[in-house]
């Protein structure tokens, strides 16, 4: 997202009504309950304590806030905001620790009635003296009334910690740097300029100021990069050479295996979720009788998901390990939401398979009809070869080694059949609910007795980041389209190939309309450039939002992505109830695109291992067969031959909610 652009265009956001603006800036971020809303949201007639105290202490910063876009889609989420807020105060580590402990204490007493900002300010002004700060807070109410006028003026600014990004900008403006450093990944395949090893603490602290600022810095130095544009690899290593690698990991497994809980807990253990938020989740989940889902709420954000206790669309979050910046994609496990899971897995580098070790539960998730198999097959077919397996909920089996081994043995056989190499799979015993063996070696005696391997975090840290094809022509498949705050609109997706610079002209395919990239943001931070492998949201102008749909591809305007409705594919047929014949209607999943299609021709049945033709024009394709077929899609789509662009050369075939085959595109016909 181009921050300054939004600022300039603020008046354009008039089409958002007041509620919209508010919704975006506060509510959506946190999914506040009504009770919290009353405290966080600004309501002139009621609670302006947060703002008033804020204004009192920070008029200078508040000015900046005015310039900040209210509804910037790519802001860091709340938890990060809070922590980065601390950063802006440029405290020493010791002070920061003091502040944190004071805050916790205060919250214990005051609960959620006082805003985070207010707490911080008060603590700071009383030099970390807990008692004084408490006194001050309790007597603070008196200050309120006289601030009303000011609030009115600034009523469009949300009463939140919004100062912090602004403040970062100030810093940057004062000290514009020339050399690009960045918090984005390099890959194994790219030679890094130098590699700064982060000390262990960075794993548990959210981003350090060092990590944070460069992204914003970059917005000041677009011109300096133009000449590098010709050499993508150089640009990449310049930009990313010194940073942690980005690793996208999709979390898969049968519904209720504990995926969301595991990830939620991991984030909590890493300090990515504030105590406050967690406390809130605990209270609220208790209220609707779903307390066991409190950690899952970190990722399950929509009301629907929380009430039902299942993930429906891919949840995202990020954290850092020693050597990597990890972006997790929490996939829904329920069979009905596999299309969403495919979208998530299509963007991931590696997968974490979570299985429920509880007796009976593992079995039912693993049996036919359970999602353990289908998910594993899907991610493999989508090109993911590295797999970590979390044998979860071992707490329910009293950390039995036998049970662990039993599950590992069963999975090993299956995963091998599915095409994973044994050496690419790591099995970790853990419990998401108790937090055992997630970020540090186990405490549980029963587990210590027999398990000597790495904890989950270390396993993730050891995953290899694939080579990013930065020097190929740009391809980015769109998986989300939403309104931005300024002019234009945003599309989100993963850059499969090449480099995307701000200001680039890109071709939206298959509609073949030229659009201009007005802004890029990577993991919610504005950036001037993005590379293959990055998941970005891109602000576009020059095309009508109505004309763009999920599954479209942003392409290099010169070396365009092929568009066709008919292609040849090499299929691997899974376990199917009925054989595939010609004329078989299917849904094809290609990246985020789902489209109805037809198998129009069965060209040849192949030998599974040698690939030689067994039979030409077979009548039908049965279980586990390999074949070459022609597929016709009901309208033209953007596809690539597998040998050209792997990510855009894969299709999944589904019928009646079951994945029946995976295919690689071998030829594309002109249509």
């Amino acid at each position, binding site marked *: 997202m181009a921050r300054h652009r939004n600022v300039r265009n603020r008046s354009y956001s008039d089409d958002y009504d007041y509620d919209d603006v508010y919704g*975006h800036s506060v509510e959506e971020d946190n999914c506040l309950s009504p009770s919290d809303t009353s405290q966080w949201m600004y309501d002139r007639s009621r609670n302006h304590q947060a703002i008033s105290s804020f204004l009192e202490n920070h008029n200078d910063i508040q000015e900046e806030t005015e310039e900040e876009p209210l509804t910037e889609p790519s802001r860091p989420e709340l938890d990060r905001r809070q922590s980065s807020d601390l950063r802006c105060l440029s405290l020493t580590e010791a002070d920061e620790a003091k502040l944190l402990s004071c805050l916790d204490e205060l919250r214990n007493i005051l609960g959620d009635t006082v805003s985070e900002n207010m707490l911080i300010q008060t603590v700071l002004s009383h030099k970390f003296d807990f008692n004084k700060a408490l006194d001050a807070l309790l007597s603070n109410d008196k200050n309120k009334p006289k601030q009303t006028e000011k609030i009115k003026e600034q009523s469009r600014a949300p009463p939140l910690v919004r100062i912090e990004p602004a403040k970062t900008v100030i810093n940057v403006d004062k000290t514009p740097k020339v050399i690009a450093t960045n918090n984005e990944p390099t890959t194994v395949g790219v030679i890094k300029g130098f590699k700064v090893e982060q000390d262990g603490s960075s794993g548990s602290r959210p981003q350090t100021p060092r990590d944070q600022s460069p992204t914003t810095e970059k917005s000041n130095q677009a011109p300096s990069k133009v000449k590098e544009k010709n050499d993508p690899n150089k640009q990449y290593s310049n930009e990313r050479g010194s940073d942690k690698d980005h690793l996208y990991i999709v979390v898969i497994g049968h519904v209720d295996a504990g995926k969301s809980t595991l990830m939620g807990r991991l984030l909590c253990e890493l300090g990515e979720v504030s105590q406050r938020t967690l406390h809130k989740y605990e209270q609220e989940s208790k209220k609707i009788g779903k307390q066991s889902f409190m950690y899952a709420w970190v990722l399950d954000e929509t009301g629907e*998901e929380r009430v039902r206790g299942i993930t429906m669309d891919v949840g995202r979050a990020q954290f850092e390990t020693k050597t990597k910046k990890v972006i997790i994609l929490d996939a829904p496990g329920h069979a009905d939401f596999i299309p969403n899971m495919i979208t998530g897995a299509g963007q991931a580098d590696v997968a974490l398979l979570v299985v429920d070790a509880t007796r009976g539960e593992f079995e039912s998730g693993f049996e036919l009809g359970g999602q353990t198999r289908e998910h594993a097959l899907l991610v493999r077919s989508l090109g993911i070869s590295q797999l970590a397996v979390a044998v979860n909920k071992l707490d329910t089996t009293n950390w039995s080694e036998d049970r662990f081994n039993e599950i590992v043995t069963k999975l090993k056989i299956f995963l091998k059949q599915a095409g994973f190499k044994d050496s690419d799979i790591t099995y970790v015993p853990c419990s998401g609910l108790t937090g055992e063996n997630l970020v540090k070696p186990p405490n549980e005696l029963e587990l210590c007795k027999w398990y000597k391997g790495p904890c989950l975090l270390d396993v993730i840290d050891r995953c290899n980041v694939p080579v990013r094809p930065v020097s190929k022509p740009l391809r980015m498949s769109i998986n989300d389209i939403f*309104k931005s705050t300024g002019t234009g609109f945003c599309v989100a997706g993963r850059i499969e190939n090449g480099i995307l610079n701000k200001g680039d002209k890109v071709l939206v395919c298959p509609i073949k309309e030229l659009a201009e990239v007005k802004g890029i943001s990577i993991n919610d931070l504005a950036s001037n450039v993005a590379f293959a492998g990055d998941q970005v949201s891109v602000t576009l102008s020059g095309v009508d939002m109505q004309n763009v749909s999920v599954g479209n591809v942003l392409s290099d305007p010169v070396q365009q992505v092929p568009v066709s409705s008919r292609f040849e594919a090499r299929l691997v047929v899974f376990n199917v109830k009925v054989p595939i014949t010609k004329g078989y209607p299917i849904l094809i999943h290609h990246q985020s695109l789902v489209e109805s299609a*037809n198998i129009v021709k069965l060209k040849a049945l192949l030998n599974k291992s040698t690939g030689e033709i067994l039979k030409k024009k077979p009548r039908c394709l049965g279980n586990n067969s390999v074949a070459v077929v022609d597929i016709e899609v009901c309208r033209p789509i953007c596809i690539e031959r597998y040998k050209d662009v792997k990510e855009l050369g894969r299709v999944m075939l589904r019928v009646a909610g079951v994945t029946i085959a995976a295919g690689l595109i071998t030829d594309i016909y002109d249509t």
Partner: protein
Amino acid sequence: MKLIYKNIEKDGCGSIGLVPEESEDMWHAYNLIAEGDAVTASTVRKVQTESSTGSSTSNRVRTTLTIRVESIDFDTQACVLRLKGRNIEENQYVKMGAYHTLDLEQNRKFILQKVLWDSVALDRVEAACDPTATADVAAVVMQEGLAHVCLITPSMTLVRSKIDVTIPRKRKGFVQQHEKGLNKFYDAVMQGILRHIDFNIVKCVILASPGFVKDQFFDYMMQQAIKTDNKLLIENKGKFLLVKASSGFKHSLKEVLQEPSVMAKISDTKAASEVKLLESFYTMLQLEPAKAFYGKKHVEKANEALALETLMISDKLFRCQDISKRKEYVALVDSARENGCDVRIFSSMHVSGEQLDQLTGIAAILRFPMPELEDSDLEGDSDVESD
């Protein structure tokens, strides 16, 4: 359709008078009329008359034309059947041999003359005039962002409205855009239902989706109905039937029609029975591949061996312009019937018929396995047939 008269000679030549009564009947007419047939119907013409003073006036007159059909167009959406051909009976307004277009109209008689009324055509007349044909069913298949509002009549599945919108995904800080988008989508689907479904005719409205979309939508719709005091929806609440479907694409209707709860309500519709039949073909292909064949050549061979148990054939094959081809298919049907085979002519307007069309248009389940057919490469040119 109402049969006015039927006048057919022993050699199969003759004419039939029919009155189409509903849009469905246009589909039947479309399947009956072939190139070369003669059709007599009334139509409105603009006629220029010149008065003795030389000024010309134009007025519209209704007149009856008979044309030799040269082209047939059927608009599935509007259910309009348009025939083109030369006039073969001169009358006071239209010259002999002049080209004319004839739109068949509902509730107006037309007469169809054929050189040969074959068994398939006669069956069609009978089916079209069967008053017991079941009432219509409406079905909405949906998923987030995609919905098809369909009307299922005895011989057609018509997509009345397709709603395809982009709903922003759930993302940190944008849950509201997602929910707003969802509501907009629900609203569009609801409008589609109100606009296209006639609750007087339809006995049941199926809402089908994966996950909770159908439930959420139904709740939304009923809430809106109460809010806006929409009597129509409130009174017909009981007609809605919520079932599972794997997607919002039209084809998932196939799953819907196999749902036991749906079957119970509409078991006698052609659409549902055709789905079931085709499914049993596929099951046979899986279990005993030597007892399930498709493609004209294979099926013909099986018929010669008196092996056909069930023959599925798409009505599309009988609409082909090549008269000799049609003859071949009719002959196959007649002979199969003679041999005690159950012959089902699928409507290419239903989902399973669409699929059968893609599968060469002809498939059969055999009484006994014929593995020798499997090995024969006869079917090689079946690709050509289906095009």
